[in-house]
């Protein structure tokens, strides 16, 4: 049995609005070991909030309650900011959707990776630079020297995303959270980045949480998938069992996709049952 990295029991996240509390995440429980877990759902399903709550990276007006909310045995809800800083970036990295916005536009890629490495590893400048080049090579960049000298605007989307992954790998984290890491990328680049993440995660023995709206994609790259709808987990299944999904929402997500191999003249439209919210 692999060590438990994340243990969440009965997590709810609410936001105050003029009409009272709005519940964005409702009674979510999940555990994660050294494995690849996909969280799938549509906009507003609470998938990103759930994953970010592990790092307590939530909007300041969020009201969070949980029976248990632990990262590697640390109680995240009661941890002090200093303790959280030891988790964020160091023991758990977060990869965001669009490298154009997530990277610092006035620092070269190499400087940003070196900075991340030094912040967590306390080495010399020279060591940090060597580490940055090594990390760039690990994310399969053919010419690490050139990329290290480049500014983010000089890199393509796929390159930028590799730089972000390299930066997150610098402190050798135990968990990677990737929030829609490939939705801004072309299909070929998307496949490359996901294959890279998959390889890195299994080689380093990390846990991975992949957040996406793309159910077939997630099932392809993860071991296990949880499907969220309106703040709740409606179904949890092994990635290989996707075709046996039971919940009508999960089935609907699969059926409403146009496919090349099974053409339909009309796409089935999701009929949302109010009972799913109960």
């Amino acid at each position, binding site marked *: 049995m692999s060590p438990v990295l994340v243990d969440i029991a009965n997590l709810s996240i609410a936001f105050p609005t003029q009409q009272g509390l709005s519940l964005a995440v409702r009674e979510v429980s999940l555990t994660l070991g050294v494995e690849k877990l996909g969280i799938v759902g549509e906009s507003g399903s609470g998938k990103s909030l759930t994953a970010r709550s592990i790092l307590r990276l939530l909007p300041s007006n969020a009201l969070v309650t949980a029976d248990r909310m632990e990262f590697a045995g640390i109680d995240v809800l009661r941890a002090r900011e200093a303790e959280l800083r030891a988790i964020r970036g160091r023991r758990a990295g977060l990869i965001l959707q669009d490298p154009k916005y997530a990277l610092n536009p006035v620092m070269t890629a190499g400087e940003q990776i070196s900075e991340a490495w030094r912040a967590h590893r306390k080495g010399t400048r020279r060591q940090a630079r060597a580490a940055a080049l090594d990390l760039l090579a690990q994310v399969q960049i053919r010419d690490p020297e050139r990329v290290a000298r480049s500014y983010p605007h000089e890199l393509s989307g796929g390159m930028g995303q590799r730089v972000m992954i390299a930066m997150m790998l610098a402190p050798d984290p135990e968990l990677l959270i990737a929030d829609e890491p490939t939705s801004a990328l072309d299909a*070929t680049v998307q496949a490359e980045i996901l294959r890279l993440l998959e390889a890195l995660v299994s080689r380093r023995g990390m846990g991975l949480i992949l957040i996406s709206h793309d159910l077939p994609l997630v099932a392809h790259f993860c071991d296990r998938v949880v499907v969220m709808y309106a703040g709740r987990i409606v179904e949890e299944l092994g990635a290989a069992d996707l075709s046996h999904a039971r919940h009508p929402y999960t089935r609907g997500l699969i059926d*409403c996709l*146009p*496919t*090349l191999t099974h053409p339909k*003249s009309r796409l089935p*439209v999701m009929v949302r049952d109010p009972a799913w919210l109960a």
Partner: protein
Amino acid sequence: MIEVEGLHVRFDDVHAVNNVSFAVPRGSGFGIVGESGSGKSTVLRAFSGLNPDWTGTMRLDGAKLGRQREKQFFRRVQMVFQDPYGSLHPRQTVDRALSEPLLVHGIGDVEARILRALAEVALPPSVRFRYPHQLSGGQRQRVAIARALMAEPEVLLLDEPTSALDVSVQAEVLNLLADLQQRRGLTYLMVSHNLAVVAHLCPMIGVMLGGEMVEQLSADDLRHNRIAHAHTAALRALSTELEEP
């Protein structure tokens, strides 16, 4: 309905579109697929008149198009963009967005046309006086489609019309576009990176790579893997890889 012959578009030293030719019969659909930077959107923008720096021949319904489009062109050809949040004016109500094309083209009967347009894209009449930020992404795209239909065009140019939407909403919008085409005999020219989406709506597909249209094939040939060019095969492999459980 649409004929494009030997189209070239250059930006400074980049040859963005290189000798592209294709034709779309009236009431049919043609989809252009390719990756970012392949020039697919540039073809669409050149045809729409948004980009004047092109050479070659483009015809609408047999009539040659000039660099400067006449007003009549914009009545017959309308465009729907990827992100409805970016293409709708944030401080204009749906009512205003839909009445603008009528004012521009001097079409009367505003009241009845707006109500009919909302019904046609299956929006409740109550959204008429709302602002874009008060609508969901799918509703906004329906408004953008309704606006494009106001001047009763014959051709719709669709630039990634469903990529910003959730898959359940994508299915609804694709069904809507199929219904509208059948009802009004519209001609579609559509750009998307998603092969399955394009094949769903367009019987003919052009594949672009580095500014050139490297292959044209029917949706049926694409489905049955009767493919000539390696790039088409690569795109298809990536698309179907995820379909098999």
